[in-house]
């Protein structure tokens, strides 16, 4: 148990764990001390000097060690002549802090004036305008007039492409170093740095290609000004025009909590579209970060199946008739579907006595139903990352492995090719078998053990034989784990579909495979299969004889849940209006089922309650998680942290 320290801030008494910084203690007392360089996820550097406050410490008699008292019996407080940075000073018992005294406020305003001397003040065209720390502080405390001569403002390059994704405006930069420190401290890829010095100091990228990191987008969130912006969102919208909807990233099985920022867009013909994806804080999953794969995922593809091949009623009837007529229909899905979609399809398959398959190249789904979160792994624990390329497949898992090592965990990396995780590993093995042997040895002495594997069923068996606390499959899709939980059978070879009548639901690649082999295919897809498959429109012309196409909705258009590879069930909400005549996947299935004489729910929440011991209300729980959000742009989690499934026996 950490010792609590009691201090007084602006007359309020507050108790915080020993070692806390004054700025965080103040936050706990509901007092926001202005900061630029400080970020709770990184070591304080005291560079920007914005958080200056008066700090007094109780006086002690050197000889006796006793506290010195004033005449009235209160402890005598020593005040230095200088203001101190609240981000670098740890709290101590009896400390007295004044954040609002005349001297402190003057100091803070002085720093603000310095920051603004050469700042371009191009807020009207700046992407950060509206959610900018400098702008907020200036509006709150800044002077309306500048004492600095306009002609003497320093100018710098305003359009520097650090990479294809990230732009740097050197004139807006206030040299707080958050981006530099994020890359070196948090990610461990020191690809940003400072060059020149003094008033010529500027940010540069040191890698070739520039800003070579899968986490680069996060720097645009933590940048306290509009110096770093994403190419995707640049000049895209004003922050206050957008709606924010909670979602879950669908790009990999980590299950990062996101917010979809949406707005009606002229360029998109007046449709409401997703303008950007932002992280939503969930300390157990993604903290306040997102990888670039998730952040820059395209949610507004034009490649959409907008209407069924015929009228909806005819299409549903035709699908139901074909499925009823088939001897042995097959139901095949992939992990891109929501739990609600999966459940209805599985229910229908069960009713008609058909197989429900989930396509996955990675195997071992039946073994991963006791996985647990490894977000807090540290000293005493051991992690085996085996097969695949975690950095590309599940970047936030990669980041957490790196962080676990920093907290003292042992990390074994067993992959055939070099990976970016090698640098942080305790042991690197270029042979999977050898990796398992090494892991066995290290696991024997470890407390909690985690295996993150990427491979087939055989590899999964070997990993399971290590009997780890947590066996995590790094699936290719966001909800593959959800399919295993529901009892789908794994399939990695689709030749079994040959000559069958198949109900396929999932990504276009899966649909394409079904189209190639099956006799008749009921397609439930959001993407336009023919374009992706690479076939011509002829397939559409003849489609009625080989397939019926039913347009479903994307994550951004749907309500539902995903189960992450760690088995955390999390809720996402529809953020934009559905395109064309598309319907939710579970509704499509329910309608077909109805024609086949099977009744299924058509409400996402009812479906969820039908298969889960949990309810949507459970998923919306927010544990007492202290808000760490000081500065930067990230969404607080107001929609729920999801629920970890208990391990199955």
């Amino acid at each position: 148990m950490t010792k609590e320290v009691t201090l007084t801030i602006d007359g309020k008494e507050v108790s915080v764990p020993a070692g806390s910084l004054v700025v965080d203690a103040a936050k706990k007392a509901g007092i926001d001390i202005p900061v630029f360089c400080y970020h709770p996820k990184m070591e304080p550097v005291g560079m920007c000097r914005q958080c200056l406050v008066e700090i007094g410490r109780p006086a002690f008699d050197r000889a006796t060690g006793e506290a010195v008292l004033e005449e009235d019996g209160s402890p005598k407080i020593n005040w230095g002549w200088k203001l101190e940075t609240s981000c670098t000073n740890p709290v101590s018992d009896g400390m007295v802090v004044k954040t609002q005294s005349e001297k402190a406020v003057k100091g803070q305003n002085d720093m603000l004036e310095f920051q603004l001397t050469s700042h371009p003040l191009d807020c009207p065209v700046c992407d950060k305008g509206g959610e900018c720390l400098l702008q907020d502080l200036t509006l709150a405390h800044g002077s309306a007039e500048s004492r600095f001569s306009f002609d003497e403002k320093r100018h710098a390059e305003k359009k520097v492409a650090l990479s294809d994704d990230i732009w740097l405006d050197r004139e807006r930069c206030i040299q707080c170093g958050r981006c530099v420190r994020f890359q070196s401290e948090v990610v461990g890829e020191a690809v940003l740095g400072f060059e020149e010095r003094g008033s010529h100091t500027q940010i540069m990228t040191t890698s070739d290609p520039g800003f070579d990191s899968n986490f680069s987008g996060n720097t645009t969130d933590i940048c306290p000004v509009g110096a770093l912006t994403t190419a995707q969102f640049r000049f895209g919208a004003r922050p206050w025009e957008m709606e924010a909807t909670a979602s879950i990233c669908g790009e990999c099985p980590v299950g990062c909590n996101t917010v979809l920022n949406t707005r009606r867009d002229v360029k998109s013909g007046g449709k409401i579209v997703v303008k950007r994806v932002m992280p939503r804080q969930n300390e157990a999953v993604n903290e306040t970060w997102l990888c670039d794969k998730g952040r820059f995922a395209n949610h507004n593809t034009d490649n959409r199946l907008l209407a069924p091949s015929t009228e909806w009623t005819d299409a549903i009837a035709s699908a139901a008739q074909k499925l009823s007529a088939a001897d042995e229909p097959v139901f095949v899905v992939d992990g891109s579907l929501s739990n609600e979609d999966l459940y209805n399809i599985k229910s229908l398959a069960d009713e008609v006595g058909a197989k429900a398959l989930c396509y996955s190249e990675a195997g071992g789904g039946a073994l991963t139903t006791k996985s647990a979160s490894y977000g807090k792994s540290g000293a005493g624990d051991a992690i085996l990352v085996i097969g695949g390329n975690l950095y590309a497949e599940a970047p936030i898992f990669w980041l957490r492995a790196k962080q676990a090592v920093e907290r003292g965990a042992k990390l074994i990396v067993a992959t055939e090719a070099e990976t970016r995780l090698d640098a942080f590993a305790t042991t690197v093995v270029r042979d999977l078998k050898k990796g398992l042997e090494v892991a066995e040895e290290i696991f024997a002495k470890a407390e909690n053990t985690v295996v993150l594997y990427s491979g087939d069923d055989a590899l999964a068996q070997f990993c399971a034989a290590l009997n780890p606390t947590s066996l995590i499959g790094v699936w290719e899709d966001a909800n593959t784990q959800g399919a295993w939980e529901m009892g789908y059978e794994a399939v990695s070879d689709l030749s079994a579909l040959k000559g069958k009548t198949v109900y396929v639901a999932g990504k276009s690649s899966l649909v394409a495979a079904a189209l190639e082999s099956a006799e008749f295919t009921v397609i439930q897809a959001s993407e336009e299969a023919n374009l992706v498959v690479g076939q011509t429109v002829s397939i559409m012309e003849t489609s009625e004889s080989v397939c019926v196409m039913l347009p479903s909705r994307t994550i951004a258009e749907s309500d539902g849940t995903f189960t992450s590879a760690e088995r955390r069930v999390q809720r996402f909400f529809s953020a934009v209006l559905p395109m064309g005549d598309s319907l939710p996947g579970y509704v499509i299935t329910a309608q077909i089922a109805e024609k086949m004489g099977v009744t299924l729910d058509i409400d996402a929440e009812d479906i969820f309650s039908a298969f889960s011991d949990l309810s949507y209300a459970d998923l919306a729980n927010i544990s007492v998680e202290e808000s760490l959000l000081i500065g930067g742009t990230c969404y607080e989690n107001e929609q729920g942290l999801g629920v970890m499934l208990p391990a199955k026996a």
Partner: protein
Amino acid sequence: MFYMLLRHRDIENLNQIDTFLKEDGFEGFKKALKMDTTDVTNEVKEAGLRGRGGAGFPAGVKWSFMDNNNWPHYVVANADESEPGTFKDREIMESNPFQFLEGLAIASYAVGANAAYIYLRGEFWEVAHFLDEKIEEMEKAGFLGDNIQGTDYSLNIYTHLGAGAYICGEETALLESMEGKRGQPRVRPPFPPSQGLYDKPTVVNNVETLTSVPYIINKGADGYRKFGTEKSPGTKIFSLSGNVNKPGNYELPLGSTFRELIFEHGGGIPDGKSIKAIMPAGASSSMVVANDEALDTQLTYEDVPNVGGDLGSASVIVVDDSISLDWLINKTMDFFHHESCGKCTPCREGSYWMKKLTERIHSGEGTEEDVALLKDVATQVRGKTLCALGEFSTMAVVTSIERFPEDFAK
């Protein structure tokens, strides 16, 4: 004149090891090696030796702060000598290198360091090569390396060249630079004796400070205290420059007066002009009004503040009555703007702003408001910067405007 530090002025070829050995060379180190390490530290503490780099912090006290629960320990000699007007360390290293190295070795022994570094400013590359030779000679003579003089104490000394940044004279920036990072100051605390080079306990001492140590060990604290005053014992090298007839280094006991230094030793002001102001600590100084009171003030850490200055590194710059201070502070601001590392806001932005204002004022385009603004900006920087450099940049600015308003009334 008695020389404790500039002994080469009395003894020819003192930078040759044979000569140095003949002149009681390394006797202090040999004596120290027979002493308990804490006794060595205590001797220096009792001698009252104060840091000669500018801050004047008691050297022995600094040594005693070393965290003995964290090893290894390091000693770093600060030879980044870059304060405008300071040129004493260079003379020591070029002409009396062994006494400096001996002092460094004693300090290392006292704090249990087996590796010591000399951080030299990049422009001193010739000095660094020269020191490398001297270090080798010292090794050959059995005063460096393993099991020095038959004891179980081992020490190696290495030179390290900076890249020419004033800020690297600040001890934490120096350590960053040694570690291969950008030369920028660290947040303190932790101070180097608890977390310094590579996060290990480190003593950083100025060259002149270390060069004073052998004498202290040889003659004891009492012997050292025969020079100087109670609070500022010993001798000090004064780098005298500016409007003076005989600029140069003068080693005098602390407690000598400005008048003695400038007029007796420095030969007074040239061309029949009269003295107007003194910058006692290089460009970082306050502008001291050179009246009789100031001239008769003793050059000690405790007395110079009485006339509105600081002894600092004792690089005394003399300013005569032909100099207008608006020109001079434009020069210092140009320097501080150029040397600001850019890490903290008030120094980065303030030095740029002050430079622009002093330029404007000096060019004659400034207004009364500009002068007031300049003083205000300088005051606004004070007490808020990450390190002392930012603080220093304001000293001459504020005091010149306050004490010589006529120079800004044009």
